[in-house]
């Protein structure tokens, strides 16, 4: 029985399988099965029955998502039936897009799939394309994944030659083309509607929903965007069935999951394991435990935008439902481990710097709020913090929350910050105390320090109000200074 459907053909010590090798190993049997033996509706039903949830981070049931794509009404040749009109034809062309823009901090699972077995993704696109009766598929791949893009293009060329892509695939009515599109490279391109804009050659700004891409997606046509790992699950589901897929899991969420661990562990990496494996198993068995001299302080369970969890949560099964109960998200399933010796506020600032840089700049809270969050954390990190900084951080977690911003980017950025404020208030208070002490020592000095930036204002009436103001650099010689 197959237990690692996604990685069974992957061996990084050799080049990935070409088409012949992949077929010898049983590849494309899922695609053959669905195209020659099933209707699109049967394929979709199987997908729904399997319980597959999207692996990109949100965990939305794939079958349900796909059921919103308009399909041609099948009138079985009865021309007199009322439904046999243009209105019952789905808009054309329809698109299926693989989101291979893997940019989430700490995440490297799709890269493994694409570099280890590119034909699995191509087969997944083929299966998905058939079920949706899509005309064109795109693999939207992160620009830095040069090798993966080359491998996918080679695989697509092989498939085209073999007749898996093109007109009348496997002798049927269905035709399908597949292209690799290299991303121009921003984190927001991974947001499915921003991805579509980027694919159209526009700015990668997310779109308002509704309308959802299933109705008006790429170039205004019905479109499905799914993560690479999600699509790679399709061929084995078709081949082995829904029940097999469900029993792979340890918990209620079906299938296997590519889990990853990064941080100060002995053996960071990425593994395909049954869904619901605990964080403790991941860290202690697969990642070889924490490095010598380091203790686990906290971890982000599924990439940079997932709220922090604590050591006490290590035994929770890592699936969408259970992690969700803890107020965090499984995300991409690739955890970032934070140890006890890292500069916690600095790490947090680093993370928020990333989100601030990667804001597309469209909506106000995200565009102007995240830089302020970053600056407030920077103040705390460097001993210049004030109570106002902390107040703003707390307010930001409300201002930038889901629904208040245009897309999920800023709420994602607030996930780690909000959980940090909840679980580690002392870290912030401690930095505040250090900042206050530093200010006190600076103001008590009689001789000016070397740096003009640090020039004290012993007698300035302004000092109590503007301890961090950039104004202070201008004031030492100002007439405002008291004698």
């Amino acid at each position: 029985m197959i237990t690692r459907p996604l990685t069974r053909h992957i061996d990084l010590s050799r080049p990935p399988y070409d088409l012949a090798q992949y077929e010898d190993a049983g590849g494309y049997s899922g695609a053959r099965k669905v195209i020659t033996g099933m209707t699109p509706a049967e394929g979709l039903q199987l997908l729904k029955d399997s319980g597959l949830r999207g692996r990109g981070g949100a965990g939305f049931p794939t079958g349900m998502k796909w059921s919103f794509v308009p399909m041609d009404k099948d009138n079985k040749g009865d021309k007199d039936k009322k439904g046999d009109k243009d209105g019952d034809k789905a808009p054309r062309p329809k698109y299926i897009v693989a989101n291979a823009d893997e940019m989430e901090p700490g995440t490297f699972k799709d890269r493994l799939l694409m570099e280890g077995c590119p034909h699995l993704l191509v087969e997944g696109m083929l299966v998905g394309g058939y079920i949706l009766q899509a005309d064109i598929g795109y693999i939207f791949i992160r620009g830095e994944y040069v090798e993966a893009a080359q491998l996918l293009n080679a695989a697509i060329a092989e498939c085209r030659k073999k007749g898996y892509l093109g007109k009348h695939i496997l002798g049927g009515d269905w035709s399908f083309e597949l292209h690799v599109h290299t991303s121009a490279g921003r984190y927001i391109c991974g947001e499915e509607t921003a991805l579509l804009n980027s694919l159209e050659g526009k700015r990668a700004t997310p779109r308002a929903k509704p309308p959802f891409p299933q109705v008006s997606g790429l170039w205004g046509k019905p479109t499905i965007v799914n993560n690479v790992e999600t699509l790679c699950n399709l061929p084995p589901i078709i081949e082995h069935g829904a029940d097999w897929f469900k029993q792979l899991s340890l918990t209620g969420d079906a299938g296997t999951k590519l889990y990853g661990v990064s941080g100060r562990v002995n053996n960071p990496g990425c593994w395909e394991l049954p869904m619901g494996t605990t964080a403790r198993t991941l860290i202690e068995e697969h990642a070889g435990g924490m490095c010598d001299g380091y203790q686990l302080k906290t971890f982000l369970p599924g990439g940079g935008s997932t709220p922090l969890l604590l050591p006490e949560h290590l035994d929770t099964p890592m699936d969408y439902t259970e992690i969700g109960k803890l107020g965090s998200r499984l995300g991409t399933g690739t955890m970032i481990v934070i140890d006890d010796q890292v500069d916690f506020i600095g790490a947090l600032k680093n993370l928020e710097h990333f989100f601030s840089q990667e804001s597309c700049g469209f909506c106000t809270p995200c565009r102007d709020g995240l830089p302020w969050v970053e600056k407030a954390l920077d103040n705390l990190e460097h001993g210049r913090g004030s109570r106002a900084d902390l107040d703003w951080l707390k307010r930001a977690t409300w201002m930038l929350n889901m629904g208040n911003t245009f897309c999920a980017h800023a709420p994602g950025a607030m996930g780690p910050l909000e959980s940090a404020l909840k679980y580690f208030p002392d870290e912030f208070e401690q930095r505040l105390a250090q900042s206050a002490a530093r200010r006190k020592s600076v103001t008590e000095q009689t001789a000016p320090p070397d740096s003009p930036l640090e020039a004290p204002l012993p007698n300035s009436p302004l000092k109590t109000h503007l301890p961090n103001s950039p104004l202070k650099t201008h004031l030492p010689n100002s007439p405002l200074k008291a004698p």
Partner: protein
Amino acid sequence: MTKIIVDDKAYEVPAGNNLLHACLSLGLDLPYFCWHPCLGSVGACRQCAVKQYQDENDSRGRIVMACMTPASEGARISVADPQARDFRAGIIELLMTNHPHDCPVCEEGGECHLQDMTEMSGHTFRRYEQTKRTHRNQYLGPFINHEMNRCIACYRCVRYYQDYAGGSDLQMLGAHHHVYFGRHCDGTLENPFSGNLVEVCPTGVFTDKTFSQDYTRKWDLQCAPSICQHCAVGCNTSPGERYGRLKRIVNRYHNDVNGYFLCDRGRFGYGFVNGDQRLHQVMRRQGGSEETTGQAAQVATAAAGHRALAELLARSDSAVIGSPRTSLENNFALLTAARQHFCGGFSAAEQQIMQTAVTNYRQPDIGIPSPADIETADAILILGEDILNTAPVLALRVRQAVRNRARDLAAAAGIPAWQDAAVQELAQQSRNPLIQLTVDNTDLDAIAAINRQLAPADIARLGFAIAHGINSEAPAPNDLTAAETELADRVCALLNHANRPLVITGTALLSTAVLEAAANIAKSLSRKLDAPCPLHQCLAECNSLGAAMLAADSATLEQTLEGVEDGAIKRLLVLENDLYRRCDSRRLDAALDRLDELIVIDHQWTATAAKADWVLPAATFAESEGTLVNSEARAQRFFAVFPGVADVRAGWQWLTAANPGAWAAIDAVTADRASAETVAVEQVATEKATVGKVAVGKVAVGKVAAGNVTIDAVTKACAASQPLLAQIVAAAPPAEARSQGRQVPRMPHRYSGRTAIRAHINVSEPKQTPDPMSALGFTMEGDPTHLPPALRPSTWAPGWNSNQSIHKFQQEVNGELAGGPSGVRLLDEPAAAAAATWFTEIPPAFRAAGDKLQPVPLYHIFGSEELSQRAEPIQARRPRDYIALHPDDAARLQVCSSDGISFSAAGLEFCLGVRITAALPAGVIGLPMGIGGLTPAALATPLTVTKAFDWQPPPSPGDRAVIASDLAANGGAAP
């Protein structure tokens, strides 16, 4: 209608809109930035947050963006909810983290939407102590300043510029909090509607450069409701004055005409009012040269001017010439002064085409679309007219009509029209068909389904063929080429497929056949639609239609010149008309030299004025009242912004003062009639608190007081004289109208320093100039808000200092203004006797006439129009002097694009550079009107052209030397 509940109060709002639209329509205050009534919602700024509740039991609610949430039946929201308020203040706080503290030196200050919204949201204290992001500003040309540090990234500028106006050289660049709105590099913003950025931008990123060079705060500007003078569309404007100078022009909303937008010619072309070509004093020719009389003798000279005028009018050998660029009242006063020898100011060709235009509009099977109606069409045929350059705002309307295909598609897909981004995304490049048959490329080519460039006669023939293709009863041209037949079939297919087809044509080509062909197309479509088919005719000047309606059977310029030549006419009075634009120069020179006396009343120094014995200074639109009839036959009133100085008075004032006896008699008749009728100009009271009533007294309208004729009396008499003009008195309330018992103040109530303006001359403040001519006063006392639209000087509401406040005066957002219509449509009733007949005179196909070239006019938004071409910023944008040739003709003449050619036209010698364009039909020569001294007079006959071996390319445009030479060619040297 849909019921929504706002803060526990139930309201009825029109269905299908979003909550922001609904709240603003209800008169509620809800701050916003990224939404614009014309641009729809995108949800970028998050400023219009409100609390939405599921039902009356839901006490928690959730924050939603009003602009992105449908106003669905029973929607329950709170604007006042503390959390929503806190969120809105928080958004402003975030926007302000990067906004500079430069309000005191920012030109937007005092009419800044960002200021208003900041006040409204209650963000009063700055907590952000970090550094701000800064940007480098760009040079964007002569119209617009750029100050990117003020940007709050609402995305409205690019959405307006790219999506609405079709521009491509203003983009959003960069990312995160460094998003930048500008060009790829410094340079002129090319779109001819770029000036609207000044009003679209909610803060001071894009400001009016012409205004900033002569700056005054909005609250210090004296304003009046006005009508643009630079084409026949009749956009409503609000010009502002201080210190006797016209400072700027901004848009004045009119739902049916210009909506929220003006073209750059209308906005930046006002310089002629202040310019050095402006006439302020009576001048008399002495010993062959003109000299201004000394200051001490000035009063006497004005009186002498009056005397000279009276003497001329009293003689039977005098003729008078009116003008299509001045008001009905001025023309009517002239007509009254000398009915026997009145010329409307049109050349014979113009007269013929204008009368055809009037006839077309009076046909029962032809409807007259307003500019706003154009947006509702689902297929548009443009016959002969380059509308972007002759009627610019119509081009903006056509652009929306073409885009509106997206809204139909969205409606079918269940996407509301206000979801701007989603609608565009769905539609992609789907457009309603636009068909253009013109002589040269146009700016609308890129969005048109069919473009074909033809000689004017061939445009008309194809038009006749299209009419015949739609309805076979219409006469068909014979011997069409196969290509023409195929093209006509394609056009017919598109028009036949449409539910709301519309035809646009115009007089720019001076081809009556084109107008007749357009009428036939409209007639055949109307048979198919079983309703009048809309036909819009673009006209040349701001009052072309009014002058044509007033002087239907008057003499043409040619006939008047014949009178001069045969000695019947010895004296001539010309009102605001430069005859050299319309007549052959050599013939005109000779005729004017034969005259015993020539008097010119004008506000500009022109070539005609240079020939005059007396020049009497006229008031411009900025210093006088008047009525103009636009190209859809809408009579609209403009009001003086400020009193004229020195000898300046309106044309009708010069003329009525010269003949007081006649006017007293006319006035007695009209006054009697007026007092017999009950003059009830009661304004519609609507739900909105801001709309009040304007009371009109029992005083007889326009009564002559102490021998002074009022403009209302002239308007009234004009209306009485010509049945087609009978309704013009209703274009605006009369002078007796009062708001809250007072005249309407032209100055804002915050007008500052009034007592100090003249303090350098005299510390005692003079009495304010009275204005007996209109319902407006040169004052700041009075009610600035409760006004009928025709009298509203500028747009302002408490808490809304910018033009965004317009929604406080609309019945519904994007709807008609509350308080009754502004202006009145004159030709909606078809002529009683008009029968639905076809035009049958089909011109022969165009054949190149041997080695002669047929002149065709080309138009440029910047440079072709007579008055705006005198404004410096417009001059900076005008093209270099040129003529256009087809490559075949260029080859025959052995010229290339770096050569010049010379030819003689309208009695003048021209030597101009060649522009070779394959779009132009072979056998014609394109003459850019207003460029290089070329005027409509040069179009009269085919031209013999030769290569000019000594031609040198002129310096680049914008150079002052070029401007001066151009003006010299057009209107002689400055006085």
